[in-house]
């Protein structure tokens, strides 16, 4: 809008090229949703993320094997191949062959070969390893399984003969939730401190500003590493999980707080806030009913973009053995087996947990970008 608006005693809208009349009647959220829907990549990414989180929440059902089941005949086995036609070219539906292994005495690696005489068809909704869903409900129903003695390892196994695919699903619960919980914690801290700082200004602002600057100017990884290393080894997994989340948030809130503060400083100058103050509104009323709605969309964008950095941080810490610790499973701990070139060269499938990390982070970035464009009123 520019200064021209309102000079004529005729209602006018200066946004010459972009406005559409029906837009004037829509609320801010409807507008955002409409613009977001146009961002095809972001919509696809949002669907994909929703899927990931649904699977993470109910991974027991999607697993083929239970998280810690070991198959001694299948140590370091490569991903199984799913066939549709048997050796004679007859269509048999999806199935796997039986697998034989032999130790190569020259290279001391196991070599796996398919035995085409044994055919094990795949079945959906099968009874398999029993599990306790969220540690509460007993069950043994699995989405996918194999008939008889056949074994399906879609992404291969690790050195103890555990199914990597099932373990990645199990790891997704920790890796994906730590981003959400960590960002929620940072968000609470960032909002409270950034909000106080931006709204009240003055000496309070100065002190909080200094703290934010302090945190932002430090290299976080060494500090994260040191703090995580200080988490006692005898703590149970749940406690370690929360400790790591808190550690990530301690240094993560500063960036968010700075964003909140900057936006509040900007909004505070607007006339409607002055008007509200003159009308005798309380601080809380102004913050919650005038300022927060004004930048909620902005905040959501920043939150969406903050989640991936939490996921990356957890993965890195766990990869180095200083974050989540076995027997708890996260995408980072799964990659500990791939710490050197030789193991990657022999078992490249051990890198697949990393592909899940990349996919999740990419999708979050796409959604964040889509939201940013949608939330920007000047586009």
């Amino acid at each position, binding site marked *: 809008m520019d200064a*021209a608006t309102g000079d004529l005693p005729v209602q006018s809208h200066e946004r010459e*090229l972009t406005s*559409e009349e029906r837009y004037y009647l829509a609320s801010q959220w409807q507008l955002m949703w409409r613009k977001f829907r146009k961002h095809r990549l972001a919509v696809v990414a949002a669907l994909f993320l929703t899927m990931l989180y649904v699977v993470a929440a109910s991974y027991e059902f999607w697993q083929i094997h239970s998280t810690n089941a070991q198959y001694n005949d299948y140590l370091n086995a490569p991903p199984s191949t799913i066939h549709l036609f048997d050796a004679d070219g007859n269509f048999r539906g999806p199935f796997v062959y039986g697998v034989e292994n032999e130790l190569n005495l020259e290279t001391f690696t196991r070599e796996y070969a398919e035995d085409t005489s044994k055919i094990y068809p795949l079945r959906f909704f099968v009874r398999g390893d029993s599990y306790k869903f969220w540690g509460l409900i007993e069950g043994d129903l699995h989405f996918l399984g194999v008939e008889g003695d056949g074994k399906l390892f879609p992404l291969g196994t690790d050195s103890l003969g555990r199914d990597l695919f099932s373990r990645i699903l199990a790891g997704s619960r920790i890796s994906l939730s730590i981003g959400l919980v960590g960002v929620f914690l940072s968000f609470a801290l960032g909002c409270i401190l950034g909000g106080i700082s931006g709204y009240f200004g003055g000496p309070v602002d100065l002190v909080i500003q200094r703290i934010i600057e302090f945190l932002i100017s430090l290299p976080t990884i060494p500090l994260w590493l040191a703090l995580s290393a200080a988490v006692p080894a005898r703590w149970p997994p749940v406690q370690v999980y929360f400790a790591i989340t808190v550690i990530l948030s301690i240094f993560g809130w500063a960036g968010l707080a700075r964003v909140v503060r900057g936006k509040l400083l900007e909004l505070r100058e607007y006339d409607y806030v002055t008007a509200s103050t003159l009308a005798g509104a309380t601080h809380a009323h102004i913050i919650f009913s005038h300022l927060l709605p004004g930048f909620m969309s902005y905040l959501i964008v920043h939150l969406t973009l903050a989640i991936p950095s939490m996921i990356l941080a957890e993965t890195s810490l766990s990869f180095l053995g200083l974050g989540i610790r076995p027997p708890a499973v996260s995408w980072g701990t799964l990659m500990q087996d791939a710490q050197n070139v030789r193991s990657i060269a022999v078992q490249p499938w051990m890198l697949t947990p990393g592909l899940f990390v990349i996919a999740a982070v990419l999708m979050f970035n796409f959604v964040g970008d889509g939201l940013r464009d949608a939330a920007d009123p000047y586009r």
Partner: protein
Amino acid sequence: MNSDAVLLEIKDLRTYFHLDEGVLKAVDGVSFNIYPNRVLGIVGESGCGKSITARSILRIVPAPGKVNGEILFHQNGSTVDLVTLSPHGPQIRGIRGREIAMIFQEPMSAFSPVHTIGNQIMEAVLVHERVDKAEARRRAIELLTHVGIPMPERRVDAYPHEMSGGMLQRAMIAMALALRPQVLIADEPTTALDVTIQAQILRLMKKLKSEIGMSIIFITHDLGVIANMADDVAVMYLGRVVEFGSVRQIFRNPQHPYTRALMKSIPKIGEERGAKLASIQGTVPVPLDPPRRCGFADRCPEFIAGRCDVDVPPLIETEPGHQVRCVLYEN
């Protein structure tokens, strides 16, 4: 005003933006002539296409705008159609700033914040003339003096944020007039300024116009300014000229319902106190895939069903030099 002396002929100018949502016809069949030493006022509400018309002439329409029609620039006996030139080519660049210059609405944002005023004025000279920097600087100082900026030797090295809006608008005028152009396009040059400053700027423009002997296309939504500055007036609505005439004709005898509504919306001295100012109902629609009908039909108090909404009314000459695009004057 005979047609031999015409400087700039705009014929059926159409500037369309092909967007995902449809075709936005910002300018849809605008024609007018510019004569030496005369001021054409283009008046209309925000979004009526007057700024895009101005930018179409200099071929600086923002992407993805496409300019069609004819813009004939007559100069020393030869004629160039600006529409046929490449918008980044040397020919149109030679005309911009030297033959046709432009000043803008918000002087604060029209100057680069990280370069000095002098640097930006000197650039206008250096782009078109082979002179050295010292000479360009001398010219810049002279121009600043000319537009009434005090202490020009100091101000030449000032950054935009160090100057007031009025001073910056003067500096912008100096920059536009650096090469004594034949046509000056002024796109709402006083809108962002205080009323007293507005009057000063208008006076300055009038003075410079007679000194240099140039034509001005003056774009504004302020009828008071039009009455003060213009010789001829084009009233625009939704990408089309709806009424054209001399300033006298337009103010004494407004004919299009839109022009009449505009006239009623300005307060007049001598009117009864407390009387309500008339306003036009509704808002300017967005010309996105506009139907073939009178653009003002929805808001027009004299709307005739079956006539206003079936086709675009033609421009009808109601008296010499006075044209109206309205079915009320058909027959």
